[in-house]
C-alpha cells in the first residue's frame, strides 16, 4: 500500500480542517481552496498508482492537532507539507504537486510575517454555542450529534465514491460519482465550519476497508439510498427542533439536496444502465 497516498490523504485533511478552524473569512477561503487542490492531488495520485498496478487504502495514523492560535496552525501546515515532500519521487504529477505546495508554503509564510494574522482559535474549546443563536440544551445536543454523525458520513461518502470512481470504466457512473463527491464536499464544508463555530471540531474517524471495498454495488446503492433518506429525516427533524429561522432554512436546504442525491444514486443501479 502506498505510504505517499496516506501522507497526501492526511495532508488534505490537515489543510481542510485548518480552513474550518480559522475564523478569518479570507484566510479560511484560501485554505479551503488549497485543501481542494490537495484533494485533487490525492485523486491523481490514486489514479497513477492504479495505472502502475499498485494500490492504496484510506488508512490514517495522524490525529488532529488542536492548536491555540492561527500561527501555530500555519507553522504546523508548513511542517506537514515539508514532511510530505520527503516522500516524493520525480514524476510529472509530483512536479505539479510540489509547485502547488511550494506556493501554499509561500502563502503561509506571508501570513506568518504579519502578526495581525495571528488569532486565537476557539474551534476546539467545546463552548458549544453558535454566534447570535440561542439554543437550549436539547437543541444544542441534537445539533452536536447531528454534526458529528453527518460530518463523518460526508467524509465517508467522499472517499467511498472517490474509490469507486477511480475504478469504473463507465462514463455515466464516473460523472455520477463526481457529482456526489462535489455535493459531499459542500456538506462537509458546511458542517465542519459549524462544528468549528461551536468549538467541537474533530476529525472524522478513519474508514475501515469494509466500508469502501464494495463487492455488491446494487446493495451498496440500496443501503446508500436508505441512508440518504435517514439523513433527510434527521435534517427535517433538526430544522424543526432548532426553532431558529436561519438554521431551520439551512437544514431544510440540505434536506432537499438529499432528494437529488437519491436520484443520482439510482442511476448507479445496474437496471438503470
Amino acid at each position, binding site marked *: 500500500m502506498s505510504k505517499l497516498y496516506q501522507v497526501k490523504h492526511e495532508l488534505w485533511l490537515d489543510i481542510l480542517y485548518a480552513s474550518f478552524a480559522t475564523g478569518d473569512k479570507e484566510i479560511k477561503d484560501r485554505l479551503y481552496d488549497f485543501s481542494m487542490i490537495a484533494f485533487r492531488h490525492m485523486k491523481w495520485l490514486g489514479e497513477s498508482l492504479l495505472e502502475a498496478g499498485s494500490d492504496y487504502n484510506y488508512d490514517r495514523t495522524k490525529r488532529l492537532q488542536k492548536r491555540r492560535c492561527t500561527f501555530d496552525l500555519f507553522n504546523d501546515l508548513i511542517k506537514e507539507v515539508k514532511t510530505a515532500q520527503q516522500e516524493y519521487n520525480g514524476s510529472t504529477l509530483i512536479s505539479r504537486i510540489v509547485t502547488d505546495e511550494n506556493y501554499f508554503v509561500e502563502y503561509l509564510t506571508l501570513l506568518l510575517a504579519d502578526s495581525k494574522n495571528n488569532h486565537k482559535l476557539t474551534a476546539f474549546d467545546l463552548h458549544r454555542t453558535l454566534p447570535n443563536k440561542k439554543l437550549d440544551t436539547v437543541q*444544542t445536543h441534537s445539533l452536536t*450529534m447531528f454534526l*458529528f454523525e453527518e460530518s463523518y458520513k460526508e467524509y465517508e461518502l467522499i472517499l467511498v465514491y472517490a474509490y469507486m470512481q477511480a475504478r469504473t470504466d463507465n462514463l455515466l457512473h464516473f460523472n455520477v460519482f463526481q457529482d456526489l463527491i462535489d455535493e459531499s464536499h459542500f456538506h462537509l464544508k458546511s458542517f465542519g465550519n459549524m462544528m468549528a463555530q461551536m468549538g467541537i471540531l474533530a476529525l472524522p*474517524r478513519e*474508514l475501515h476497508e*469494509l466500508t469502501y471495498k464494495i463487492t455488491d454495488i446494487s*446493495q*451498496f446503492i440500496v*443501503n446508500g439510498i436508505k441512508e440518504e433518506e435517514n439523513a433527510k429525516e434527521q435534517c427535517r427533524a433538526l430544522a424543526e427542533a432548532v426553532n431558529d429561522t436561519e438554521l431551520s432554512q439551512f437544514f431544510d436546504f440540505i434536506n432537499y439536496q438529499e432528494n437529488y442525491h437519491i436520484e443520482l444514486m439510482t442511476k448507479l443501479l445496474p437496471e438503470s444502465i
Partner: protein
Amino acid sequence: MEEIEMPEGMNPEVLKHIMNPQNYGKLTDPDGTGVAMDDKTGEFVIFTVHLSQEGISDINFATNGCQDTVVVGSMFTEMVKNESVEYAQGAITKIEEKLGVLSPQQKICADMVFNAFVAALINVANLAQGKKEEIHIIKSEESCEVAEGDSNE
C-alpha cells in the same frame, strides 16, 4: 466511569469518546478478527484483538455505524484492554448496566459492538483448532432500522 447519559449522550465522557474514539482502527496481524454485520443496512462493527497469556493485550474496533456504536465501542475497548478474556465477557453486562435505558436502536448498536467482540474470540478459538477462517462474522438478527414509533427518541 461516571453514569453515561443516553440517549442525550452529551456528558463530557460521551463527548470525549465521540470526538476521539479510543482504540479505533485495526491491529496488524491480529490473533482474532470478528465482525457483526447488519445485512439490511450494511452497517458493521469489526474487532481485531491481540491476546497474551494474561488476556487482551491490545484491541481495536472500527465501524461505519452511528455515533452510539462508536461511543459504546470506545468505552468497551477502554474497559477490556489489558484485562482477562473472562473479565471482558463480564464487562458486556457491566457496560449494559452502565448505559442504562437505551432506545431500541441504541440497544441494537450496543449489541453489534458486543457481537463483534464475541466473533473475534470465536475466530481466535477456531484458528486455535486449525480452522481456516480469516474473519468470523455474526449476522445481526435485528436491524437498527426501527420503524417509526418504536424509538424512545
